[in-house]
Each structure stands twice: as C-alpha cells, then as structure tokens.
C-alpha cells in the first residue's frame, strides 16, 4: 500500500532529520535500520521516531554547551597568561607563583572541558542508537518486515552498551572536574597565603 499524502509529507519532514544524523559526527553504529524499511510505517510510528530524535537535539545542545565552556576557559587562560607576564614584569616572584597556580587550575579545567566535548560527541552516538532502537520498535510493533526473525535484542544491547560506556565516561569527566576543583582550591589557598604575606590584595586579580 502506497503511503498517503500525509504520510508522504511526514516522511519528507522526517527523512532530512534522519539523513542529517549522518552528518552529526561521532562513530557509526553496528546495527542500523535503513529508511526504506520504514516506508510503510504509520503516523504513530513516525511520531515515535520523531520523538526519539529529540535525543539528538538534546545531545547536540549539550555538545554546544561543552564547546562554549571550552571557549570561555580558553579566554580565561589568555587572561591568566597576561597576569603571569604582569607579575613577572613587576618582578613579583610570589605573585608569579600564585598566577601560575591559577593557570594550572585553568589547564585542568581545560582538560575537563575537552573531555566533556568528547563525552558529548559520544552522547550524540548514544542518541543515534536510541533512534535506531525506536525504528526497530516501530518495525516490530507494526510488523513492517513480516519477518519473524527480526528481534529488538541487538538494538537494545547496542543502546545499553553505548549508554553504559557513556556513563563510565561521564564518571571520568566528573573526576576531571573534581581534580580541577582541587586545583582551584589550591590556588585559593596560595592566594590567601600570598595576601597574608604581602598585604597585596590586588595583583593577579584586580589589576592584571
């Protein structure tokens, strides 16, 4: 049965998004479903897959956030560099140490930000796997293939493995964040000490 005009429209709307997934970056999936198998799906099926695509949007949004964060940190690093130079110019050895500690914490933060970007790129992959599972569910529910051998298990396993991997990576990212926090705490401590020793509240913060 050929799809009606509404279905065609919906397909037309859906397909670019589905096609566009290919351009989203990240690795490829071992289990995918070609769109040709979905040509007879119902409106409900389309909506189901459409809903699943929200995951991609969310994943991409997270990726953008991560990139913005890295950009911000890089800007801070440049500022930190200038602070170090200013301190060197003033021949303020202690101040240089404090500024370097700040730079150090920012570098850790940069590592975290980069790791986060890698994580969220992977997250896009996870979202793609979720979409493939959604497609598989539609196929099964609507018996689009008429194939008794079709099983959801592979797609579920694929998503589960990716999700587990994502969770593990997220833990690593969080660890990096904690390390960065520790470095920041170290900088604060050094700064307090510096202020207590020299009475200079301004160098490396207000005036550099």
């Amino acid at each position, binding site marked *: 049965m050929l799809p009606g005009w509404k279905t065609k429209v919906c397909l037309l709307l859906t397909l670019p998004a589905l096609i566009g997934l290919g351009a989203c970056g990240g690795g490829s999936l071992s289990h995918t479903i070609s769109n040709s198998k979905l040509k007879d799906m119902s409106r409900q099926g389309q909506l189901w897959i459409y809903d699943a695509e929200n995951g991609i949007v969310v994943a991409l949004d997270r990726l953008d956030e991560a990139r913005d964060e890295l950009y911000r940190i890089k800007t801070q690093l440049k500022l930190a560099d200038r602070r170090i130079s200013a301190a060197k110019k003033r021949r303020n050895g202690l101040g240089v140490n404090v500024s370097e500690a700040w730079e150090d914490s920012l570098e850790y933060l940069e590592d975290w930000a980069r790791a986060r970007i890698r994580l969220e790129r992977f997250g896009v992959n996870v979202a793609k796997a979720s979409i493939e599972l959604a497609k598989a569910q539609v196929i099964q529910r609507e018996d689009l293939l008429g194939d008794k051998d079709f099983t959801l298990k592979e797609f579920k396993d694929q998503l589960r493995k990716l*999700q587990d991997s994502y969770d593990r990576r*997220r833990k690593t990212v969080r660890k990096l964040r904690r390390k960065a*926090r520790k470095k920041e705490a170290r900088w604060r401590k050094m700064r307090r000490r510096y202020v207590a020793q020299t009475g200079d*509240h301004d160098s490396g*913060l*207000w005036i550099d």
Partner: protein
Amino acid sequence: MRRIAITRLGAAVILTSTLFVLQGCPSRIRRVQVEDRVARLKRDLGKVRFALRTTKVLISRARGARYLPNLYNRLAELYVEQARYQYQIAHEKQKNKSAGVVSVQAKLLKNQAIATYRRLLALFPDYPDADKVMFFMAHEMRELGEYEKMLQAYQDLADKYPKSEYRLEGLLVMGDYWFDKSKLDLAEKYYGQVLASAETRVHAMARYKLAWCKINRANFKSALKLFEGSIRAARRFLPKAGARTKKLDLRREALVDSVFCYTEVHKPKGALRYFKKRADSKTTYLAALDKLGNRYYVKQKWPATLAVYREILSLTGDVEDAVEYAHRLFESVTQGKLYQHGAADVAALTRVLQRRYYNAALTKKKRQALYKQFEKYTRFIATKLQDFANEKKETRYYLRAARAYRAYLAFAPFRKDKNASAVRGNLAEVLYSAKRYIEAGKYYEMAAKGQKGKARGESTYTAVVSYFEALKLKGKKRLSQLDVVLARAGLRRAGAIYIREFPKASEIRQVKFNIARTHYDAGNFDEAILFFTALVEQFPNDKEATVAAHLVLDSYRNREDYDGLIAAGTAFKRISSLGDASFKGEITQIIKGAENALLRTETIKATTEEGENSDTLERIAAKYKGTALGEKAMLNAFVTARNARDPEKVFEVGERLIQAYPNSKQLSDVLATMGKLALDSLQFARGARYLEKAARSKTGRSATNLYKAAGEIRARLGDRKHSERDLNVLLRSSGSAKDKADLAVMVARLHVEANDWPAVIGLLQRASNAGASSGPLSYLLGYALFRQGQLASAQGYLGQAVQGGRGGNDAAKDAAAAAQFYLGEIAFKAFSQVQLTSDLSQLGNTLQQKLGFLGQTRQAYTSVGSLGSAEWTVAALGRLASVDAQAANDLRNLAMPPGLPENIVQQVKSALESNAAPLAKEAKMAVKQCASAAKKFKVLSEAAKACIAKRAPEGDPQANLTVPSVNAGRPAGAASLQRRLAAKPGDIKAIIKLGKLYLTHGNPYMARMILGKGLEVRETAKLFNLIGVAAARLSNFNDAYALFERALKRDVAYDYARVNKAALLAKFGHAKAARAETKKVRNANALTDGAPELISGALSRVGLAPSGR
C-alpha cells in the same frame, strides 16, 4: 566607462605624429611680443573710415530707396564708432597722465553723428526706428555733455513715441540725470513715469534708482519696498537678458543696497531668512550678509551680528575674509555674552582655523599667532558655555557645551595642546551633567591619561562612577545591549587603573564592588565569585562585605554548584568579623537550602534511567560526614540503591549509614528495609541482624515483634547464642506469654541438641519467670531437669506439660506425650531404684513399693498412647516392655534369703514366677505392639528400631541424639544467587540452587530455611526432598520421612525422594518397607551418591550404590 579602443594602427599613428611634432619643435623658446593697442585702434579706425566712405557712396546712390534711412542710421553709428576709437586712442596715449582724457576728434565726430541723426529724422519722419534714432541721439548728446539737449531729446522721445521701448529707458536716463544732480523730485518724477507704465525689464532699475531716492529722503521703508520690487523684477526678467548690465547685477546690488534699509525698518530677527529668500545665489547672499553683519556690528547689535557672522562662516569659502569674520564673531559673542549657542560658534571658528592654518602662504609666526588666538577663542567660548549650562542646569546646554568641546578637540593640533587635558576633563564633566555617562566615562579616562597625581585619581574615579551611573539608568533612558557591554568594560578598565595606581584610596572598596558587580550582572558567575570573595576577604568589616558574600552564594546558586556554595558559605561563617548574628543566620539557612538542593539534584540524577547510581550521593555523604547533609545524602543513596534492587549495595550503604549515624531517626526504617531485603534474598542471618538492630531503635510492640522475628530466624539457623540473646530481650519485654514461650522452646531445643542441660534449665526458668508458659516449654524444662537428675522438679513441669497437651495443638500434644513418657521414665527410675531384698522382713515392703512403682510406670507409659503421638507411643510401648521385662527379671532374680528351706524357696520362686511370667509375657507383647505401631505409623526412632528388632529399647530415646556441626560461612556462589533472589524473590531455580549449596557446604539449618522459603513460592518434589535431607541431617528423621513422602506425592517418579525414604526406613529397621520402596526406584543409575539430594549413605543403605548394583 568605456575605454577607447586604440588599434595598433592608431597607436602607431599617434606615436609617429608625436615623434614628428617633437622633431619639428624648435630648440629655442619664442618670445611673444605684446600687442600695440594704439596700432590696433588705428587699424580699426581705418576700417571705420573706409566704412564711412562706402556708406556715403551708398547714400549718394540710394536716393529714393527704401533703405536710405537705414543708411543714414548706419552712417551716424559709424561716426559714433569712429569717435569711440578716437577717444580710445587718445586715452591710450594719455593714460599715464593725471589729467582727464581730451579728444577733439571724438567730440567732432559725435557732433557729426548727432547731425546725421537729426537729418535722418528730418528727412524721414516716418522712419520706423525713429525712436531708436532719437534715443541714440540723446545718448550722444549726453556723451558730449549737452545735457539740456539730451533732456529735450529724451522728452521728445517720450512724448512722440509713448509706446516705444526706448521711451522708458530715456525716462530712466532722465531720472538718473536728475538724481545725479540731487534733484530728487525730478528724478522721482521720471522714475515714477517708468514705473507707471507696464512692467518691463527697465522697471527693475527704475525701482532701484527710486529706492535710492527714498534712501536719500530717509524714507527707508519705501526704499526697502522698492528694493524688493527691483529684485523681483530683476529676477523675473533674468532669463530674458537685461537684468544684468555690463556694470551692474541688479539682483545683487538691490539686495545689498537694501541692507541698510532693512536694518532701519525691521528688527534683526528674520533678517537671515529675509535675505536668503531674496538672494539669487550664494555669492549674492554672502555679499548681503557681509553688509548686514557690518551694519549690525556698527550698531552693536550683538545677537544679530553674531547670527550673521555665524551664517557667513558657515557658507563662505573665502578663507581670508573668514578670519576677519571669525574675529567679528568672537567679538559678538564676548560683547553680547551670547554663549548659549557656543557649540556652533566654536565649530565655526575651528573650521575657519582648519582651512587657514594649513595655508602654505602663512609664515610660521603668523601661523602661530593665528593658532594662539583661535585656541583662546574656542576654549573661551566653550568654557563660558559650560558656565552657562551650569547656571541653567539644563541638559540641552550641557550637550551644547559638549559639542563645543568636541568641536575644539576636532582640530588635531588642539588635541595636543597643553589645555587639551583640561578640555577633555570639562567635556567629561558636561557629558556627565547631561547624563551621557558612557561618553563621560570615556572622556574622563582620556583626561586622566594626560594628568598626574590627585587630578588623575579624581578623573579615573569619576570615570568609574560615570560608567556605574550609566548602568543604573532605567526606563526610557535604559542603555542598549551594546552600551551595557561598553559601560561594563569601561568600568572594569577604569577601575583596574584606579586600583593599580591608588590602592589606598578610600573609594577602593566601592570600586572593587562595582567591578565585581559588572561580572555578576553579565552572568559571568565564575569571575563574580572570584572578585566578590576577594572583596569579602579583604574588607570583612565593611557594610558591603555582607552584600558581596550574598552575591557569591547567589552566583554559586546560579551555576547550581551547591558544593561550592556550601563551601563558600561555611568559609564565610568562619570569618568572625563578617556580618552580625542575623547575617550568619541567613548564611546558615542558605547553606541548608543548598544542601537540600544538592541532595535533590543528585538524587534525581541517580534515580533516572540514565543516572549514575548512588556514587555521587555517597561521595557527598563522605564529604559531609557527620553533618545533617551527610546523613541525608547517605539516606538518599540508600533509597537509590534500594530502588536499583541491588541488595549488596543496599547492605553496604546501609551499614555505613548505621555506623556513621547511629542516632539517625530514619535508622529503624533503614534497618527494616535491609532486613526485609535480606530475608527476600534469603540471607537470613543478615536479616536477623538487621531486625535486631531495628528492634533496638524501637520500643513497645514493634520492638518485641522484631526481636521475636530475629530470634526465630536465629533459632532456625541453629544460632544458640544469638537466639538466646533475642529471647532474653523478649522476655524482658511486654510480649505475650505465647510468643515468649514459643521462642524459648525454639532456643531451648538448640541447647538440647547440644546437650547443654544447664543452659536449657536456666533459659526455660527465666522464661517461665517472665511469664512464658506453654506445654512444650514445661516439657522441655521438665526433661532438662530430668536429664540433670532433678526428678522431683522435673515431675512438676512434666505434669504441667501433660495437662497442657489436653486440647492443645500438635506441638502441645507432642510435648504432652513426651512429658508423659518422661514421667514414666521417672517412675521407671524409681522402680529401678527399689531393690528387692532377700531380707524377708523388708521384702514385703520393697516388693510392694516396687510393684507400686511398676504400676505407676506402666500407667505412665500406657497413658502416652492416649496423647496422640505415634513416636512417643512407640517409645512408651518399648519402655513398657523394658519395664515389664525388668520387673520380671527382678522377680525372677530375687535372691532368697540364706537358710531358707528348699521347698520354701521353691514356693517363693514359684510365686515370684507366677508374677514374673505374665510380666515377661507382657513385655513381649509390648515389644510386639511397639513394633506393630512402629511399622504401622512408620515411626523412625531408635525405639522403633529396637522394637522391630524384637528388643525392648533401652534408656532415654533422646539420649544419643547428635546434631552435626554447622559450617556457618557463606559458600562460594551464594552471593550471586542471593542478588538474583533480591531482584526476583520467586526464582525457584535460584532458591533450589542456593539450598543445595548450603547443604553441600554443611549448613542444614540454612538450607532448610532457604528451601522452606521456596515452598512458599511453589511446592515441588525437589524442594520437599531437599528439605527432607536437611531435616535428616538435623536428626529430625520423622519430619524428613514426611517430607520425602510429600515429595513422592508431588512426583511419584522422583527417585531421590524414593531412595531417601527407603534409606530412612532401612536405617530404622523397616527393612521390608525399605525394600518395597527400593523396588520402585526407576533409574538408580541417574542417582549420584553424595549428591545433596540424597541423605548420607542412602544408596548404600538401600543397596543401590554403584559397587552394589
């Protein structure tokens, strides 16, 4: 633009021509001689003379011709022309002399021309151009100075030719003549005649002249009107020529000449508009303005003067005049104190200077003088304008002052002037007053660059304040997004400079606060946190410090960094000089809120599908150990683990929670949950432990129930120590007598199995004192006392147990039967203790006593059968046989007293035998009945075994009971099965597997409990069989037998149960039955000796062991 395509040929031609031209150019420069003007005039004179001769010839030949008058006209013109040349020659020759030019020839020729005109008019009165002839004739008369003749001629012309176009010109000339003679009346008359006729191009001039008449009469109003009319007329006839004479541009002249009149007639306001409207070009307008300005300047009307010169300067392109005008303008401004439009004035002055200053013709000295002067002018005006603005305090004046200063600074050399910094400062000030804060800030910064010391500090600080004020604007004056960014950047920039150079200034804290605030407002929370924190640390006593602290915390909140917020808040609280008690209280509340928020977010994260489980919560708990937050985090982690159905995790987190927060109010619920989970996952010992801990934190009935449950579990697990401990607590509580008794009995049985009779007695007495009472309790206590030889006390309790069994449940009945049995045993002991003596004097008593005890014993044993316990009935029957046999033996073996006659001895023996024989017979009967009952009821006991072996059982049937030692450890593989069961408590396969593990491991108690749980899910043959095996290992053989039977009921083909049943039967002497069961085994080869499904040695016992097949 299209390029002209040059062909190759064309290019060649051009090149060749150029070369040729260059070739032909002389090598020397030619000097051109100046033309001799006299010679040229003479040449022209010659031509005229020739023309004259020719005309005369033509006249002579043209008698009667129609064109003859024209010839005469031409002749006269030639004379005039010749006269002109003559005059010019004379002029050339005499021009260096001071005296006037005299030319007699010219005069004569003119007279000749006049004569010729007269002749023409006389000869040809109807000549069409007669008016023209007359006009020219009068003109020549005028040239000759014959004014009266001229006047006459013009008058004749006017009279005779009223419609001639020359008439009006003639009148005009007449008017001019009288005007020059200062005969204004006559002049006006003739001018008036011109104006009275229809409008022609002459009227413009007539009006112009008439206007001058009026001026001379001081009638400026009329004069002005006439000038206006003259201008209109001149404009009207402009395209038709005649409006511009060779010497006079009427439009310009009239306008310029009208200036004086205007200044007399009208007020200055509107003057510029007036003249602009009437000027036909910029040049004319400027000319008029020049005169106007001068006029007002003379009259010292400064506002008007200023306006005019301002206008001139805005239009004029004449640089040199402009300088003069500039001076006039400045003078007007200063004299009139007209500063309110100083911006335009300064702009005008700087424009003039701009054009003049770079003139290469100026000497250095002049340039410097000019610079100095104009610099003074512009600065003066701008400053005065600022003063004016300060007086008026109106924004528009401030803005004008700003424009004036900007105009000053627009001139590049001024920007490097020593006063430039002050000017910038002033500019900044007026911008600030005009609420243009961003620009004010910018200029304050620029001013500061050129300043030093205190002034620099003030300027820098004021720049900061300006930017700050800009950011405060609201409503319609609110800044655009770009301006906001600029203001913030400016504030930070100026602030940084101020801080760097004036770190000890009193405004420093305010500056720092504002810098930090810009970051906060921009959403740069990281920076805001850094700066505000530094501020708080540097100025903890300041009133802004508390605000800064709050903003730090708010920044953390905005980032949802609750960890950071808590750390910061805690740090702030530690600063003693920061804020008062109320502030500290606020911080505490905020921290609390953050803790809740932290927990909330982490808990939500942990419990979502994509969550990270409870690790983060545990980390929080570890970090905030000992605090309310730590406790909450731990609780949430516990809940998360529970929801994830991970029992090990639940236990792990729960244990840590219990250890860390032993006084937590949630502890009892946690323990209850852990207990339930443990029991669900069949970790009974653990479950009991948690129940005990839970009970400790509860009171009343809840605690009692928990202790009871825990005690029961412990008891079923064979844990004497802990079960007794639970019992002790239960006994001290207000639990029911039944509950106490039930648990006491369970625990006491464990002691019984361990042959620890003092423990049994102590425990049961305590229980009894605590109000526990039941048949089994009484029985066990009685039995224990019996075992300890305290027969009198034992009797009492055993009697209670017998009483309690009547109408009681199965356990009570069983206990009653056992108690009755042991009452029999006590009687038996008493019976046995009585020794028949051969002393005849004692024999009677002892015999009676013994018979009495025999009767009691028999009575006691016989009564067992009515109490409904097959096992004890068999045992009683067996003991009955023993009693009877012993009685018979005692009688038979009674020693005769010595010295007794033989026949008496025989008689006595015969009498004794007559009593003994029935007893012996009854003994045999009892054994038979015992065996029969044992076979009938399949009693599996040593007593039954003895009876079946046709022997009377001896001694206490429970005397040799042994329970194997228990391996209490957890076998390998149990943990995973328990996890599986925690997730799915009804997993029969896992239950069976776990039960078998424990059986193999050597813990039948645990196995029994585990497998018993399985029965609650589903009753299977396997389960029954395995529980039976566990029971058998615990020496509960009758229970085991019943279980094997139930297994076979479920599955008649279950060989394990069959073999087990057969083995038990064989063990206890039911050989035939055992054989019958063995025959029903279907596949003995499938059975493995040593399998947990078989009781120990089962296959061997029934002859199915591999070697025996």
